[in-house]
C-alpha cells in the first residue's frame, strides 16, 4: 500500500524515487504482488513435495528423524504383495469409477441440456452430492451398506430379487463394487455440470444444419456433439481421474482398506504405514510412487489442451 500510494507524489528523495521505480516497473510490482501466494505455496507445497521425496529415501519414524538408506524402502515395497495389491486396487478403482462417472455424467448432462421445466432447480439439486463433505456422505453410505440393517438389502429382499442380505463391505468383491459405487455417486455431478457447460457452448445452428442434411440422432451426437465436446471432456476427465486416483476419504470411512486389503488404495496404504504405523519413510515412498501415474495424467491433460487450441485455430 505504502509502496504505490507514494507513487502519486512527485519523486524527491532517493527513497521515493525507488518507490516510483518499484510501482512503475511491472517486474518489481509483479514480484511484490506474487509474494504472499508464492511464499505460502513454496513453504507449504513445493518444500513438502521435495521433503516427501527425501523422506522416501530415509527410515524416518514418527518422533525420530531418519537417516538416508537409499532405495531400501522401494526395494521393500517391490517385494511387498500388499503394496502391489494396492496399486492394482487403485488402478481398478480409478479406471472403473472414471468410466462410469464419464458415461453417466455425460448422459445426465445430455438430459439436463434438453429444454426442461425447472431447469435451474434440477441443476442445483444434481450438484448436491458434490457440495456435501465427502466424509459425511460416506458415513451415510456406510449406514446404507450396513451388513445387518442395509436399506438396499431390505428393499431388494422385499422385492423378492434376493433371498439373503448382501454383505456389502465384508466380502472383497462386494466391497470393491460398493466403494466404486459410492465414488461414482459423488463424482457424477461434477462431470455432468462441467460437460453441461460444454454442451451449452455448442451452437444450435450446427444441429439444425446437420438435421437438414438428414443426420440421425446418433449421427448428431457422434459427429456434432462429441467432437465439439472433446476438449472439455479431456479436462474434466483428467481432473476426475486425478482426484479418484488420490482418493482417501471414502475408503478411510467405508472400509479402511479392508476386507483383507481388498480396497486398500495407495493413499490409504500410505496413511496406514506412514501415520498409523509410524513408518514415515515407507509411507512417503508409497506416496512418491503415485507421482508417475499423476504425471501421466497431467501430460494427458496437456495434450488435451493442445488439441483444444488447434481446434479453435490456435487462439484463446
Amino acid at each position, binding site marked *: 500500500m505504502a509502496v*504505490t500510494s507514494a507513487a502519486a507524489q512527485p519523486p524527491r528523495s532517493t527513497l521515493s524515487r525507488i518507490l516510483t521505480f518499484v510501482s512503475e516497473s511491472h517486474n518489481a510490482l509483479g514480484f511484490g504482488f506474487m509474494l504472499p501466494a508464492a511464499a505460502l505455496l513454496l513453504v507449504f507445497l513445493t518444500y*513438502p513435495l521435495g521433503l516427501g521425496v527425501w523422506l522416501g529415501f530415509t527410515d524416518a519414524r514418527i518422533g525420530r528423524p531418519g537417516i538416508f538408506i537409499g532405495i531400501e524402502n522401494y526395494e521393500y515395497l517391490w517385494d511387498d504383495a500388499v503394496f502391489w495389491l494396492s496399486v492394482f486396487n487403485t488402478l481398478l478403482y480409478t479406471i472403473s469409477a472414471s468410466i462410469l462417472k464419464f458415461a453417466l455424467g455425460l448422459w445426465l448432462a445430455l438430459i439436463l441440456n434438453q429444454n426442461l421445466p425447472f431447469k435451474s432447480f434440477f441443476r442445483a439439486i444434481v450438484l448436491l452430492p458434490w457440495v456435501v*463433505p465427502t466424509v*459425511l456422505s460416506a*458415513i451415510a453410505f456406510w449406514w446404507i451398506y450396513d451388513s445387518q440393517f442395509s436399506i438396499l438389502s431390505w428393499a431388494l429382499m422385499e422385492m423378492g430379487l434376493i433371498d439373503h442380505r448382501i454383505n456389502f463391505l465384508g466380502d472383497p468383491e462386494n466391497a470393491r463394487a460398493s466403494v466404486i459405487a459410492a465414488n461414482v455417486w459423488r463424482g457424477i455431478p461434477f462431470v455432468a455440470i462441467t460437460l453441461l457447460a460444454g454442451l451449452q457452448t455448442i451452437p444450435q445452428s450446427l444441429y439444425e444444419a446437420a438435421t437438414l442434411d438428414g443426420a440421425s440422432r446418433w449421427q448428431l451426437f457422434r459427429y456434432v456433439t462429441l467432437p465439439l465436446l472433446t476438449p472439455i471432456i479431456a479436462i474434466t476427465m483428467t481432473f476426475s481421474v486425478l482426484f479418484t486416483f*488420490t482418493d482417501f476419504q471414502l475408503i478411510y470411512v467405508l472400509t479402511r482398506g479392508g476386507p483383507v486389503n481388498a480396497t486398500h488404495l495407495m*493413499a490409504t496404504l500410505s496413511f496406514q504405514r506412514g501415520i498409523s504405523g509410524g513408518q514415515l519413510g515407507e509411507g*512417503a515412498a508409497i506416496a512418491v510412487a503415485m507421482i508417475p501415474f*499423476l504425471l501421466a495424467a497431467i501430460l494427458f491433460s496437456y495434450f488435451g489442451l493442445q488439441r483444444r487450441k488447434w481446434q479453435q485455430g490456435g487462439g484463446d
Partner: protein
Amino acid sequence: MTAIETSKRPELDEGGMGYLQSVPRRVVTVYLPLLIFVIVLLFPFYWMTITAVKPNLEMTDYANFNPFWVVHPTLEHIRYLLFETSYPGWLLNTIIISTAATFLSLLAAVFAAYAIERLRFSGARQVGLAVFLAYLVPPSILFIPLSVMVFNLGLYDTPFALILTYPTFLIPFCTWLLMGYFRSIPFELEECALIDGASRWQILTKIVLPLSVPGLISAGIFAFTLSWNEFIYALTFIQSSENKTVPVGVLTELVRSDVYEWGALMAGALIGSLPVVVLYSFFVEHYVSSMTGAVKE
C-alpha cells in the same frame, strides 16, 4: 425473412429442436432417466435425514416399521449430539478454520491473479502454469512431509496447522478462477485510470476489485466449501478431541468400538452438511457459472 419467421414462433425457437420429438419418446429418453438420476443422487440425503429423526427402536425393527418412513419422529439424536458430545466445538473449529483459510487464500490469490493476468511481468505465463500445476498436487502425497513440518514448527494439534496448510490447495484454485475473471475486465478501463494518474493499487482497489465481486464471491464460496470438506490434513495434524473439525470429529469420536450410534452419526453428518448446502443454495447461480467459467478456462 428468417428473423420474422422466428419472432413469430418463439415457442419453437425456445425449445431448440425439441419439437421434433414426440411426447412419449421424450418421457422415455428424458424424464424417466432424469427421475432415476434425481432419486439415486438424493436418496443418501433422504436416508440421512430420516435416520437422524428415527427412534432407535424403529431403526432396527424392519419387520414392524417400514424403514423408508418414520412413525414417531424424535429429536433425541440431535439433542444428544449437541449437548452430550463435543460437536458444537467441532462446528466452531471448522467455521474458524475455514473462514481464516479462505480469507488468507483469497487475499493472496487476488494479488497473484492480478499480477499474472494484468501486470504481465516477465515470466507471468510460466508462473500461471506453475499455479495450475500446483492445483494438481494432491493432499494425499503431501500429508506425510507436511505432518513432519507441522510437528517441527510446533503447530501440531493447533488450528494454525490447518489454517496454514489449506491455502496449498485453495490459493491455486482461487488464483486460477480469479485470473479468468480479471481477464474479462476490459483493459481500456485500466488504461483510462492510468492516464488519469491512478496508481496500480488504486486501479486494483477502485476498478478491478469492485468489478470482480461476483468472482470474489464464488472463489470465496469454493474455498470455504473446500476447507469445510477437507479431511486428510485435519485427520493427520489434529490429535485432541476439542480441536477437531466436523468431518474428523464425527468419524473418530462418534463411532465407539462396536456400538454404532447411527442416529447421532446421521444427525452429525446432516448438521455438518447444512452450512455448505445453505451457502451454496444462496449462490447456486454464481457457483454453476463460475464452475463452468473455471473449466472453460
